[in-house]
């Protein structure tokens, strides 16, 4: 039987761009170029490796996001995923993690899955909790923040490097997995991959396809509210000295003046 892998990928504003907020205090997605979150490339990579190991597997990439989020799906398809699902609906604007996870869970159930693979965190929101929430919503084991992962005989195994210890984990499928940037470099799409991606199916779903109401998501339906966002004042220009042989001592003098020594 085929192993059905669903990879959750997010389309995010480029972290090296000038990111800011829109008037309604949601993340501005118009003025900064978007891309497939670099941390989700690791999830796509592990999905492809697992699929290559399995006799028969299918990799579906899934995103919840605006029209442009198709770019993220295309990138994942050109890396080698088989098909894509795009959940897009005007009513999704401003959805927070609780709403996004609700939509993703519905879309995952509709698509059908044996394993869901996500990134460790999105590079814009950086919460790092969505995979755990998905496991809760889907009612399946959570095998998250793995720096090493494998699937064999319906069991997912992996290594989680935590604060206090490194743990080996094991769970029976179906399960939700997330992988870190320690899991292995993501491949670059080949020219052939880019060409092939153009012909791969991208299914579009809206809220009604998922039996969700507008009130359950979006800015109005959000479980959290942002009241203000202020640009951090630029740090006041510091003192910069060129080392002419006394740089270490000058630095020590500064640290002493600040009472660090």
């Amino acid at each position, binding site marked *: 039987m085929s192993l059905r892998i669903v990879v959750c990928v997010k389309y995010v504003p480029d972290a090296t761009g000038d990111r800011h907020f829109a008037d309604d205090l949601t993340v501005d997605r118009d003025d900064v170029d978007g891309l497939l979150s670099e941390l989700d490339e690791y999830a796509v990579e592990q999905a492809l490796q697992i699929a290559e190991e399995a006799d028969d597997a299918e990799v579906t990439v899934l995103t919840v996001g605006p029209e442009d989020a198709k770019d993220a799906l295309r990138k994942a398809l050109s890396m080698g995923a088989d098909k894509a699902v795009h959940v897009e609906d005007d009513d999704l604007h401003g959805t927070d993690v609780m709403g996004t996870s609700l939509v993703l869970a519905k879309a995952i159930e509709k698509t059908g899955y044996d394993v869901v693979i996500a990134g460790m965190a999105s590079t814009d929101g950086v919460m790092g909790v969505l995979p755990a929430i998905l496991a809760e919503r889907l009612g399946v084991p959570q095998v998250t923040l793995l720096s090493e992962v494998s699937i064999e005989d319906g069991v997912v195994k992996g290594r989680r490097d*935590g604060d*206090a210890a*490194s743990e080996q*984990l094991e769970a029976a499928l179906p399960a939700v997995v997330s992988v870190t940037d320690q899991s292995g470099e993501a491949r670059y799409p080949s020219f052939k991959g880019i060409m092939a991606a153009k012909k791969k199916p991208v299914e579009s779903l809206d809220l009604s396809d998922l039996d969700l109401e507008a009130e359950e998501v979006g800015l109005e339906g959000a*479980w*959290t509210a942002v009241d203000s966002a202020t640009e951090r004042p630029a740090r006041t220009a*510091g003192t*910069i000295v060129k080392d002419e042989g006394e740089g270490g001592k000058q630095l020590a003098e500064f640290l002493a003046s600040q009472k660090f020594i």
Partner: protein
Amino acid sequence: MAEILVYVDHVDGAVRKPTLELLTLARRLGDPVAVALGNGAADTAPALAEHGAVKVLTADAPEFAEYLVVPKVDALQAAYEAVSAGGSLAAVLVPSSAEAKEIAARLAVRIGSGVITDAVDLEAGDEGPVATQSVFAASFTTKSRVSKGTPVITVKPNSAPVEAAPAAGTVEALSVSFGALATGTKVTSRTPRESTGRPELTEAAIVVSGGRGVNGAENFAIIEALADSLGAAVGASRAAVDAGWYPHANQVGQTGKSVSPQLYIASGISGAIQHRAGMQTSKTIVAINKDAEAPIFELVDYGVVGDLFEVVPQLTEEVKTRKG
């Protein structure tokens, strides 16, 4: 007075500093009721009482160590239900460790609440606690609230001072029954991280970091010597970690640890946005880099343009001399 549930991060009964900071913030909002789980849970009570916990709910069971995350969610939910039955539970506060964030988020789903992660400050507001967050690699500061359910908020280390505020700290056993999902993910082995004897990276008052400029694993001894002279933790950029010069556990940045010490010293680090994301909220920033154009200099309070192999050892010697 409102009650605030505080999830305790501890190692075999030794309460970690971020939890004590959390108690400082919790006291701004109400009376802290602490929840300590796992081996040594009851031993946490004296430290928690000393810092303001009016009550300490404890539970221990093999499941907490043998299975990932979910048993702790079940227990925190039991604590939530026990306290909210009294009718005055105003918030659930959790330290922002990777595991505790997952616990917080799953609890939030179960109790129908919103969740805010990685707050750097908390204050009481008319519509519940207001959380300050530092976003987009610390280029923006936001203030947000949970608008549905009992607010669940995770707070980063070094967000508040540790303050003594003796309270009763009455220990009560929490009764927990584990759900079907609790045993879903088995922890088949655990290798504790070896202690370096240095302060914990995320908790340290001073962090000394090295990057690609350190140019080799053996050269990290120079960074460690400076750290030791200052009683600091050692950090590393991803370039240094990827090169295999220093353990990933010490990586500072978006995909490593986020630190907010009183003093951050970067040596041989250019200051890429992903590195900044993990250190930009440090109070005082110092850099040593031979390239005067390195972006790290945009952040510094004091910078030395020079060769770290000259500057760092001289600084270390000078620190030792001054400290006598």
